[in-house]
């Protein structure tokens, strides 16, 4: 059944995309998939070009990444001791980047079944990018979710109400500097065994 699809190229040539996006494309990365990074001020127009010129009509998802490593590590610290210093140098992934936060989306061409990831830097001061809900209607909810979880605003979005959390919730849960409270108040049992087991100390009767 799938012999035909395997013969099809899964990725559009980088040259074709580069030609269509012109100088709006900042960087690209090509492995199994194709990653693009576009200029922040041309985010919406780039998505429009991808849709109208290159035929990427199918909207898959939109989300964000916080590239700062968590100051809390993997939440395995002993809460009774002072937290160790951790390296929080920001290092971006495929297709590079200059800011801590990046918004990224995946769109697909339903005819050729080619998909691309499009990343965009989110300016650190304003934390705002253009909304693409009028290019891809499905981005509406995804932008609401990203706004709620990362605190990134989308310019031109009609309704950025919270989807999951109460409206007066403070903080942005998916940011790396938002602590996972469950791991903050109780040590992770897989790593540190703080509570002595009953029978500990008397060596002879430890095991049944």
């Amino acid at each position: 059944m799938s012999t035909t699809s395997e013969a099809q190229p899964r990725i559009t040539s980088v040259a074709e995309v580069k030609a269509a996006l012109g100088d709006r494309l900042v960087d690209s990365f090509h492995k199994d998939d194709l990653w693009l990074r576009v200029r922040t001020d041309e985010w919406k127009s780039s998505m429009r070009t991808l849709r109208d010129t290159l035929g990427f009509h199918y909207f898959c998802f939109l989300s964000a990444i916080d590239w700062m490593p968590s100051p809390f590590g993997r939440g395995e610290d002993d809460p009774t001791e002072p937290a160790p210093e951790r390296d929080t140098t920001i290092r971006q992934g495929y297709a590079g980047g200059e800011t801590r936060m990046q918004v990224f989306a995946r769109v697909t061409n339903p005819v050729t079944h080619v998909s691309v990831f499009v990343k965009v830097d989110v300016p650190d001061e304003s934390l705002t990018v253009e909304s693409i809900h009028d290019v891809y209607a499905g981005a509406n909810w995804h932008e609401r979710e990203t706004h709620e979880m990362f605190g990134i605003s989308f310019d031109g979005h009609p309704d950025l109400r919270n989807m999951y959390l109460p409206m007066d919730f403070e903080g942005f849960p998916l940011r790396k500097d938002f602590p996972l409270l469950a791991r903050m108040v109780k040590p992770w049992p897989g790593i540190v065994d703080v509570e002595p087991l009953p029978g500990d100390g008397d060596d002879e009767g430890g095991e049944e």
Partner: protein
Amino acid sequence: MSLTDRVLGDRQRLAYIASQAADARLNVELETEGMTLNIGPQHPATHGTLRIIARLDGEQVVWAEPSCGYMHRGYEKLAEVRTYPQVTTLVNRIDWLGSFANEVPFILAAEKLMDVEAPPRAQHIRTILFELSRIANVSLFLGDLGVQMGAITPVFFAFRDREYVLNLIEGATGGRFHPNFDRIGGLKDDLPKGWIAETKAVMKKLRTFCDQIEDLLFGNEIFQSRTRGIGVIPRDIAMQFGLSGANLRASGVDWDLRRDHPLPMAWNKIDWKVWTHPDGDSFARCWVRLQETREATKIVDQLLDTIPSGPIMAKVPKIIKVPEGEAWVSTENPLGEMGYYVVSRGELGPFRVKIRSASFNNISVAPWALRGVYVPDIITILASLYFILGDIDR
């Protein structure tokens, strides 16, 4: 004019104009007074805890919006403090009716980053269990469908026959709902003795079940009049909102990730068909799901005949560290496209996991699709869009 005008059929355009008119009437408070109807969070037609807020004018919906979040468990955050093998326990609970299918794309993404491929036997058994979870999931949908339109019988059939499939999943994996059976590099265990013959017998039963549902429900006049031409989602809208799975194929898009995205799974080794329907209405969505369930039983049958021998685990280190990189794998789950975007920093656990679940996109079309419909149709449209709350909220 606007996008909605361009792609709408006549019937939908009329409904849209009617809703606009209703809106206008509402504003000047003539003839009728608008009211707001709350459906849920606890309502038999909502498959969990979804609340629908609908503003009505008479019997017609002027504006409706699902309100989610009652089930949000923050799996994307939790995955960041788990190791790779631990994440499958979490993602099992996203779409709880087809749990095994949730594990597969995450494991495949991790394998892609590690450059490991499961041995052929493991790929084969994975595909069988994947299709079994599809059957378990969608057969419940087919039964539930009747209940939402006032027919009681199908749901008893569905629960009876789903039980056989759950027993099979339990027999192979040890877990009825949350198998947690998939491992990076292969599977936890091999199939038990006698499982293949038993599965074949059950697949026969399930095909009978599909025939019964087709007779009882799809041939039923009431069912047809409640679903035909109701909740039409045109092709363009379906793609813009990122609908996937049967919802997309019911709008006439011939796209199935099992066929169109080469993955290290066994679907490409057998002969099967992708079902589509041109109408895009509630009936089409239900019909495509019914055909897919029957097709899945045939897929399982063929796969059972061709299981290769060999190991079920590739060679992977005991402590799994995934090399730095980013990977995306999505599969055609019972509810639609389910994908994981995994960012690794070469540590024991993922740096970031974005979970793209099918229901989130599928339900995001609801405000559009519910506009201008009548109150009883809210239920059939939502039922035919088929979502699972854990899959929306994650």
